């Protein structure tokens, strides 16, 4: 079952696929996120969130990155598979 949702509301340790970005995002902001590896079609997994949930640690392209919740709201996902944390 495929669901569209944003990265900030993704469940921990669930693998998603990036499908796109918020349409309100400027070309420049989108390009910056892509430069960091957030590209449509890539797999992504949220590893943990900070104490108040404002910062997320994600695993993408064999790399652990941290991203702010407000930036994560601009990244649209769909579920790939559930509970597959290795």
């Amino acid at each position, binding site marked *: 079952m495929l669901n569209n949702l944003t990265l900030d509301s993704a469940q921990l340790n669930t693998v998603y696929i990036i499908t796109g970005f918020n349409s309100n995002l400027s070309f420049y902001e989108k390009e910056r996120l892509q430069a960091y590896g957030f590209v449509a079609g890539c797999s992504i997994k949220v590893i943990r969130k900070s*104490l108040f949930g404002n910062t997320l640690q994600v695993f993408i392209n064999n790399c652990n990155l941290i991203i702010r919740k407000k930036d994560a709201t601009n990244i649209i996902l769909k579920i790939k598979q559930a509970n597959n944390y290795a």
Partner: protein
Amino acid sequence: MHKVSLLGYPNAGKTSIFNALTNLNKKTGNFAGVTVSVASATANINNMQIQLSDLPGINSLTSFANSKDELVVGKYIQDNPNNLYISVVNIAQINKHLILTLSALAKNLNVMLAVNMVDTVTISTVQLAELKRKLSTQLGIDVVFVSAKTKNGMQDFINAIQNNLTNPKPITQNKFTNDIPTNTLLVNKITKGLSFNIKASYLTNKIDKLLLNSYLSIPLFFGVIYLILLATMNIHGLLSGLIDSVAGLYFVDLPKQLLGYINAPAIVTIILADGIGGGIQTMLTFAPIIFTLFVLLGLLEDTGYSARQAFIADEMLQKIGLPGKAFVSLTLGLGCTAACSSGCRTLERESDRRLTLMISPSISCSAKLPVYIYFCFIVFTAHSTLMVFLMYAIGIIFAVLNGLYLSKSLFTNNSLPFVVELPNYRLPNFTAVAKNSAQKVKGFLQNLGKIIIPIIALLTVLNSVSFKGKIVENPNQSILAQTSSVLTPLFIPMGIKTENWQATLSLITGFMAKEVVVATLNSVYFPTKEESGAPTSLNLISQTLAMFAEFGNSIFNKNYNDVFDYNGAVNNTLSDDINAKRQVLLQKFAGTAGVFAFLLFFVIYTPCVSAMGAISQEIGKAWAWLVGSWSVFNAFSIATMYYQFTLSLLHGLVATLIFVTIYTVIFIIFKNLNVKYGKQWESNFVFGKKTNGL
């Protein structure tokens, strides 16, 4: 000479390769943003001399260069289009790093590919060979696999560089695009079927479960900061006395005696011995503290924990409009505000750098510590440890409040996507960290010396001569004292009495160098006979040996139970008669309230002139002036409001009302300036063309 440049993402290992090829010890780190400028050196490639350049790590070569690093690299490429660019990629993140390689090819640069850190993954040789074949075929460039750390593959790498320089491959124009999604598809096609295990991942995940635990991370984080401070202060306490004595002997007493032998004019002795020699003595005494801080912060960075600190700190810093990366700069400010300025270079937005530096003055640098200890130990003896910690805490709290105020007024709220890489943990390289810290301290002292020594020499002269140009016996009649007396009434609202011009003098000298404050106060409040004349006789060797013997005694006889007690940190400059000194200070400063108000001012007011110089280099003179004047105003307002409240509630409320009104007016002015000029201040550079920001 052939020119070769190393290009790649942060943490790809470019500097390690640079060091391996040039046999240098340039600083590497386990945190993105370590290399902040282009370093060049000569390297020998199979008896061929080349000029090798290590470019800062960047995330993108696309249309906008927003960080200083990308600006530096973009400009470098524009100025050097014919270089051989070695695109260094980390094999563990090859899918992401190859994007930059494709961007470089899209710019029709002469590129070869170095796949680095092969030792960090477990991968079969068959897969490696297949990957190499696909990369060579699809990209049309030479590909080598190398490990800068273990030196595997270095000879093949060197041979490939030589081959590319002597027989450069023809560049296929316009074969590649700069579009990231398109490049991602191509990279995914190349790496399809590639599988490997990253060796450090399992351990990193386990450690992160503890260090980044939602509830444990913040206490652990502050615990680490506390331990760093504790170690720094104890080492300072152990070494400062020895260095102060030895430096005083060789740079002050010895020149005085030599100049006395040749009957040099008194003013020459003052300038050379007390001024320049005293300046060197002052500077050297805080070398241990700077070195210790750089070593400890360097070790933290090398392990990979610094990036985790950014994760933990970001939760707090984003509330005041700063990225988590700024935490590293602010932490460096605990050592030296000038180091904080240098650290800001890794922040992408100009406004982030400005905001970080505008709140940095109240982050207590290491040079402020002797002043805190001086006052807290003498005046608040029973609670000196707590009071010193309170000074640090006040500085940090004020920095947060200041940041909130400025992020809502002077600086825009729009911010770039905040993304930071968390590298895998690794064992720190103690030797490299120590060497790099020593180089840093050396460079720091050299730069600082050029500013501090002449200024201290000038101050010493101004403190020794009157307006009539004559050398004075009584320091009260010196130019500096007279000037301080004129300025002192300005500080009456914060509890400095008119006759306490010495406090004003110490604030002026504190602007020159914070650590001079203790020497200034000691010399004007508690003058000693030894300070007024040249030493009668010197026996350098025996005196030096005696100083080291005393130091050795202090090490072996030290009560290590008091290592957690800040009282044990610095006692060397204080005499036994603490009670007498306390009475003098309390009388001069109108009680403990006056002393505390003075300390509040000291915590918050402008950094030293060296730090201001570094700030000016980083964000420009106009902004540096704003940093200085804003911090002095803040210091005065906080100290005054506090002191007035200690006089009476009415006094306090009136003072608060006045300052709240002033702050409100300033808020409106800042806000209007931001609306009018904010976008102009935030300028992005398209290569060769300046554009406005978002």
